[in-house]
C-alpha cells in the first residue's frame, strides 16, 4: 500500500481495485460528461422567441 503524492482523497489507497475496472469506470464517467457537454452545446443555441404579452 502506497500513498499517491498527487492524491485528492486523503483516504485513497492504491491497489484495492483492479486497474481495468478503474479505467472502465473512468471511461464511463468520461462518456457521461461528454454526453452532458454535447447536450449543453446543442441546447445552447435554442432560440425561444420572446413574445411580450403586455403584462
Amino acid at each position: 500500500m502506497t500513498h499517491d503524492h498527487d492524491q485528492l482523497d486523503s483516504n485513497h489507497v492504491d491497489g484495492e481495485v483492479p486497474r481495468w475496472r478503474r479505467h472502465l469506470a473512468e471511461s464511463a464517467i468520461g462518456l457521461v460528461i461528454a454526453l452532458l457537454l454535447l447536450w449543453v452545446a446543442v441546447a445552447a443555441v435554442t432560440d425561444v422567441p420572446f413574445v411580450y404579452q403586455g403584462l
Partner: protein
Amino acid sequence: MADVNALLTLFRRLDVLSTWGSVGRVAGWSLVWCLAVSAVVVPFIPAADRAVEPDVPPSDVAYVGPTSLTDFAGFLPPADDDETFTIAWIGGSEIKLGTVSVAAAVDRRIASVGGQPVRTVVSSLLAPRTIDVIRALDTAGAAGVDAVVVALNPTWTRSGLSLRGWDNLDVSNVGALWRDVDTLPWAAAITSPDDLAWRISRATIGAVEGQFELNEYAVERLDSLDLVLDPEEPVPPEIDPRLPDSDSFWLVQEHGTQIVGDEPARVEALMRGAGLPSGPARGLIDELFERLDALDVPVYAYASPLNPELLVDPSFNEAAALVEAFWSDLADDLEADADAIGGAIVVDARMWSRNDARARGIYGDAIHMVDAEPFGEFLAARVCAHFRSVDAALECR
C-alpha cells in the same frame, strides 16, 4: 446531499477521481467520447443550408449569411473555384428580403465576366452594422472572391455606437477584429471568453460545429411536447405587441413609442442618428475600406437607394442628403488617395432613386423593393462599367 455522498462513495469504491491522474484520464476520456460521438453523428447532419425564401424569379445566387441570431457558424465561405468569377455581395436586407433580391436581379443580367461564368454569393443580414460587414468581408476575402459589391446601408453612417444584434458573429469570426490596431478596442470590448471557447470547441468537435442543425432536429422532435409555444388558441396580433428590438430602444427613448410603427419616421431618425456623431462610424467605415483595398479585387460600393416617394418629403430628403454627404466625403477621400487604392474601389455615393428615373424600382417601404428588376438593370450596367474600368479584360456578357 445523500445522493452526492452516495456518488462519492461509489467513486471511492471504484478508486476513480481520487488522484489528479485519474481526473486527467476522465477529462481525456470525455474528449475522446466527444470525438467518438461526433464521428457517429456528423454524417447524419444535413449539409448547412441557409433558410432563405427562394428568389422570384428563380436565380442561382447563393445566400451565405446567418438567418438566426443563435447560429454560431456565421457567414458560410464561398467555395474557392478558379473556374468561375465569384462576386461577393455584402449588405443588409435591402439586398435580399423575402423573395426579392437586388443581387439576383443583377446576377440574371451578367452571365460571365472576363470569359468566366459568374457566381454571386450574398453575405447579407437583417440590420447589419459595420462590424458585421467587416466580418462578412473577413469570410469572403479568405475564400478568395474575384470582386465585391457593397450596398452601403444608411445606418452605417451614424450608428457606430449603436447596439448590434448579431453577436453570434463574435464566435464565427472571432479573430476578425484582432488583426488591426484600429479595431482592437472593439475586439476587446465585444469578445468574451465563451466566444473563444465556442470557437475552439466548434473547430475541434464535429457535433458542436453541427449544433445549430442538431438543435433544429431536436426542437422539431420535441415540439410535440411543447405546450407553451403552441397554445391551443393563437394570440391575436393586436394583443401581442412586442417590445422594441435593440436598435429601436434608443429610438423610442428619443422619439417615443409611436416611431416603432412609423417606418419612414424610423428610417429618417436612423439616418439622422438620434444625436450620434458620425465620427466613430467613419472610423469603422475607413477600416472596412482598408480591408476591401487589401483584397486587391474590383470593389463597387453604392449608396442603397431609398423610396423616391419618400424622398419627395423635404424632411426625409434632408436626412437622406446627410447620408449622401457622408458617402460623398468617403468617395472624395478615396479618390484623393487613388494611388493607394489603385482605382479598384469606387464609391457610388449618389442616391440614384432620386437622381435617375431608371433606378427607381418599386418599393414596399423606405428601403426594401418589391420589384428589384428595374434597379437591377441599372446597377448591372454600373457594376460592369466599373469592372471594365479596372481591367479591360473584365468584360461582362
